[in-house]
């Protein structure tokens, strides 16, 4: 250290130079490393309230001896830290994100504006209905729109995500059967291509999973299904189009067969994007549908959400819905729009509450805005473009990748790197990592489990044909590279990202889940 100046350690603590990729690939220190005793960013209202000491306020036995050490940083360092972290993060706003089953479409900024309206965000969830008529009307209108989209009779908006919706749906199934002949029904049928949340939810719902295999077309094997159907079956969970992006053409006979044995049909609506305005789960014979508003209805994924997983049901299941539900109270005239009043109502045979409050309300408001902006005709166009994009890509990728079920798909397609792996050792994972270098997020890999070295690509409707072309080109280049002289690039990829391939095995072996757990 030069001069006669006392130094301040700069490496482990405090003012690091930018480590954003803008400036290279240095890592960013944690907040804990940036912490300096005595620094602070907070600033609170001046209240004028008497300044009793902790000892005067908290019985001695309950008072903590030491403050919780969080971190001590200036506002300036806080901002630099999280801004730099944001530069180390891929996102839809940065580029295409063809992550299959996740529907990473563009999220309109309009909905951010909606989500920031103080008249929505400032409402306390325990406020009586009379103080929040705008919120109640919004929720009711959204529920009605979702019922129209799915062809169902009523819905709950409480579930906070798809999996929560699934479990809610299974509790509805249970309540329905228990009100009838439930005791014998202990099994729920799931196709082998199902999303992992489906079997997990079935288990949590207290049912046994019966897996039914797909046939050569990639669809439910109706004969195999029929073989497992009996009166121990509570229901079946399907997604249609299924996780291969294929429409279950036999859905009508499947529905008939399941209903025949007294089972219910559950629709995993994560893939609703493909059939908006084209077909409806209700019309296909489904009894229960959950939707992932964070997928189909463009609410942003937030690095892992918040989402919203409303569940819609047919008339006969409506009395079992979670509650309290927001409802119109048409008789009472009053303070709503057009003289309507809104209130809360507990369904007569409700399974009970499934959320701390009313669901992820602000996410619901975003979805409502998205539906209003699109309208019925716009939603149909979403499906058209989503399906068109996925089919175009399938056609385009023929020749460079195996396409296990090479027939018209819906909103997504599954290709396989099995051939590539055999010939060059380059696996689906390597393709995914190499694609990151090309500036795209990777597709979903190794799902569905029914396809070897699966790459599940969901372009979504908001990517242009030019972007698809660029994506297809990049995938082609990767395949060609692997089959050519040098599989190295893919195996060593990614090298241009903020970090190169991370050691996942070590993370699990030497678990460091917090800063304090470092060895």
């Amino acid at each position, binding site marked *: 250290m030069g001069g006669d100046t006392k130094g301040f350690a700069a490496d482990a603590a405090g003012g690091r130079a930018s480590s954003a990729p803008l400036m290279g690939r240095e*890592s960013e220190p944690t907040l804990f490393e940036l912490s300096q005793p005595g620094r*602070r*960013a*907070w600033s*609170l209202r001046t209240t*004028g309230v008497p*300044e*009793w000491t902790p000892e005067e306020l908290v019985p001695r036995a*309950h008072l903590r001896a030491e403050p*919780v050490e969080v971190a001590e940083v200036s506002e300036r360092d*806080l901002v630099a830290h*999280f801004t730099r*972290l*944001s530069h180390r993060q891929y*996102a839809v*706003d940065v580029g295409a994100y063809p992550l299959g089953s996740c529907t990473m*479409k563009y999220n309109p900024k309009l909905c951010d504006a909606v989500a920031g*309206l103080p*008249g929505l965000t*400032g409402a306390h969830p325990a406020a009586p209905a009379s*103080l*929040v008529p705008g*919120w109640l009307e919004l929720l009711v209108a959204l529920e009605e729109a979702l019922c*129209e989209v799915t062809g169902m009779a009523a819905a709950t908006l409480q579930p906070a995500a798809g*999996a929560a919706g699934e*479990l809610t749906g299974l*509790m509805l199934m*249970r309540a329905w059967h228990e009100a009838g002949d439930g005791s014998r029904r202990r099994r729920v049928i799931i196709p082998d291509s199902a999303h992992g*949340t489906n*079997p*997990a939810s079935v288990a949590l719902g*207290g049912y046994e*999973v019966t897996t039914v295999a797909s046939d050569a077309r990639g669809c439910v094997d109706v004969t195999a299904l029929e073989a497992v159907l009996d009166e121990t079956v509570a229901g079946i969970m399907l997604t249609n189009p299924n996780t291969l992006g294929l429409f279950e053409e036999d859905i009508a006979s499947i529905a008939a067969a399941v209903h025949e044995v007294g089972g219910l049909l559950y629709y995993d609506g994560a893939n609703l994007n493909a059939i908006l*305005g*084209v077909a*409806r789960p209700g019309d*296909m014979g489904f009894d229960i549908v959950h939707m992932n508003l964070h997928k189909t209805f463009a609410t942003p994924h*937030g690095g892992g959400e918040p*989402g919203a997983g409303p569940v819609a049901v047919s008339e006969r299941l409506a009395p079992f819905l979670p509650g309290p539900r927001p409802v119109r109270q048409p008789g009472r005239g009053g303070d709503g729009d057009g003289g309507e009043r809104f209130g809360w109502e507990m369904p007569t045979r409700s399974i009970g*509450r499934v959320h*701390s409050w009313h669901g992820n309300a602000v996410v619901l*408001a975003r979805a409502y805005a998205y539906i*209003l*902006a699109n*309208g019925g*005709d716009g939603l*149909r166009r979403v499906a058209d473009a989503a399906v068109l994009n996925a089919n175009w890509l399938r056609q385009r990728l023929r020749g460079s990748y195996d396409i296990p079920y090479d*027939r*018209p798909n819906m909103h997504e397609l599954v290709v396989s790197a099995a051939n590539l792996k055999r010939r060059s050792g380059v696996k689906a994972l390597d393709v995914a*990592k190499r694609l990151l270098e090309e500036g795209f997020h990777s597709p979903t890999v190794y799902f569905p489990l029914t396809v070897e070295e699966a790459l599940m690509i969901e372009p979504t*409707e908001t990517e242009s044909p030019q972007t698809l072309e660029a994506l297809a080109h990049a995938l082609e280049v990767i395949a060609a590279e692997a089959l050519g002289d040098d599989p190295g690039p893919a195996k*060593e990829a990614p090298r241009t990202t903020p*970090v190169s*391939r991370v*050691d*996942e095995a070590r993370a699990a072996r*030497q678990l460091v*889940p*917090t800063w304090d757990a*470092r060895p």
Partner: protein
Amino acid sequence: MREPVGHYVPHTDAEIDAMLAALGLSTVDELFAAVPQALRLAGGLDLPPGLSEPDVLARLEELAARNQVSGRDLVCFAGAGAYDHEVPAVTRSLAGRAEFVTAYTPYQAEVAQGVLQALFEFQTMVARLAGVGVANASLYDGASATVEAVNLATSSSGRPSVWISQGVHPHWRQVVTTFAAGEGRDVVEIPLEDGLTAWPDARNGVGAVVAAYPNYLGCLEDLARARRVADDAGAPLVVAFDPVAAGLLRSPGSWGADVVVGEGQAFGTTLNFGGPYLGLFACTEEHVRRLPGRLVGQTVDTEGRTSYVTTLRTREQDIRRERASSNVCTNQTLMAVTAAIQLGWLGTSGLNEVALRCARGARYCRQALLAIEGVEPLVSAPVLREFAIRAPVEGEVLVERLAEEGFLAGVPLGPGLEASGCDGGLLVAVTERRTRDEIDAFAAAFEKAVR
């Protein structure tokens, strides 16, 4: 020109035609050949045509204008798990960065270090607050965290029976009960006596003991007692804590909690009419392989650089499917990132200060209300930042009356506390944002309202 159909679809008609042609198709409908004709929706969705963006915003603004909300219309004294805390511009601005908002679950760690590191920092802070070794990367809300804690505890003890204090938020208990049906769980609610859980002597069959700290009435439970009850039953102790109060109170971990859950809304998330909120979940290291939800771990990349990745993924449903520890897939990451930012903003001293100011405000407000003739404390147990009172007028009526004076007076007590004797009471919360002037005005209005 009119609004185009499907504003967010970039394709021009010419491009659609070209793409169809490449597929050998001539109409978009042909894309849906696999959908049996009988299942096709004739006439399209019965929804109005799309609106322009400003028209949508105007409609939502109009709805929003009709709500009476905290800040704009009402001074908020309501809490019950949903608090009016300071959310500074810096938190909003950082948490609103598009990279955080429009990313998904960090499946590809190499391009998700931003979210991963923020979650790692979040986990560290939550574990410290809770006083246990591990925290996950968030669950949906306080209720879902409680459900998962009960799942973890009963699967750890191997006994499905649950004792849950009525000091746990009534809604959270309802959600536990809703989902208990699935696993055939037997949920026994233990009522409060004068504000504290009246734990019976422990029976052997109990598989999980759940207490709250402070509890729903704002009272400081005797967690040593709860720990003994759990020990006697040989069951894990789950504590639903208030992470803001934790700035002053001993951590649940220090009282011996095995699992700590809570609602993290207070850290940077606005009231949001109840959601999205943030489920906090932490537990001792011993239970890490039963931890629900995502977990981020520190590791290195091929060049040895510190990196972060989701780990112990074998717990998750995409690997273990029906044998997963939970079905939670997407969670509330953005709120967790928000909380990490807000906790960074508060820091060690700010967290303490917020807790202290809440407690001071609550003491001041409680004194002012109890000075009103006819207003009485509902219970006598010690409280921190929230307190229950009984007035000559029912809680629900008070709330309606005081709303007209510009106050959200609190949350009426009753449902879910039947055996705890709270009917007609009012739960009042005071945050660090309430000034003396506001409290004085509230007390004055309250005095009129109880007449």
